[in-house]
């Protein structure tokens, strides 16, 4: 299957690979997995005191589309509030990367990773 140029670019030069300390109060961690293909994705957001996402990192074990989807969302979430980040949808991700229908689940994984990270942040900061 042919990957789009954008997928190949993110796959060959993934942005923001790595980890933050998951116990840091300003860090939100989202772990998600896709049973269909066994892909595992960790997305971490670092949230500043002004409530904006300062930085993001990811680690993904999966196919090129899964890596590209997570790399892309680490770029997209920066500078956004959690509420804004929560609106990023798999349709936007798959459109940007021109994912074929069989790879839509990779973009769903990235969308759910953002949502899981936000849930983690809210459990760390119940009053935020």
């Amino acid at each position, binding site marked *: 299957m042919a990957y789009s140029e954008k997928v190949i670019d993110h796959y060959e030069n993934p942005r923001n690979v790595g980890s933050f300390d998951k116990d840091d109060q300003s860090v939100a961690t989202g772990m998600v997995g*896709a*049973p269909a293909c*066994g892909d*595992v994705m960790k997305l971490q957001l670092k949230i500043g005191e002004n409530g904006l996402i300062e930085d993001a990192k990811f*680690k993904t074990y999966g196919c090129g589309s899964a890596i590209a989807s997570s790399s892309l969302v680490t770029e997209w979430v920066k500078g956004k509030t959690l509420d804004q980040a929560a609106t990023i949808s798999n349709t936007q991700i798959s459109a940007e990367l021109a994912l074929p229908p069989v790879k839509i689940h990779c973009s769903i994984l990235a969308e*759910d990773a953002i949502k899981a990270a936000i849930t983690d942040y809210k459990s760390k900061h119940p009053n935020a």
Partner: protein
Amino acid sequence: MNYFDLFSLPVIFPIDQARLSETYRELQKQTHPDKFVMKSDSERLRAMQKSTEINDAYQTLKNSCLRAQYLLLLAGLDIALEQKTLQDTAFLVQQMEWRESIAAFTEDDQDKIDEFALQLQQQVADLESKIEVQLQNDELEATANSIRQLKFMLKLQIELALIEEKLFD
């Protein structure tokens, strides 16, 4: 007729693999194209469709994960094409650690690789036992979750086989 009926097997998770293969060969003989050379087009077509069905059934029944998924389907829950993500953090953290160790294996780690392969085998066997009990008790959602976990274990086995091939072949 469901796949188990097609193979005259009881509709349960444990399966007699020897009997399954034997029945498969018998059924394939009955629908072999050679037997239908002199028959009408419609009979040939029917034999071909039957043969395809037998193949699908065999591939589904011999694989524990697909068999469990099929039993779940018969019980009324279809997860074959689901795109839902798994969000069990503890399970996924463990998955990620295992993927990291697989990626870090080198030529000197044959012992560690063998040990890990055994560990994975045990994980798969434990999940299969769990699935058997859950299916017996008609716990559909719990079964679905165990099948999802099993898929991740099978993926680890594939990744481990790939790295072994890369390191030692």
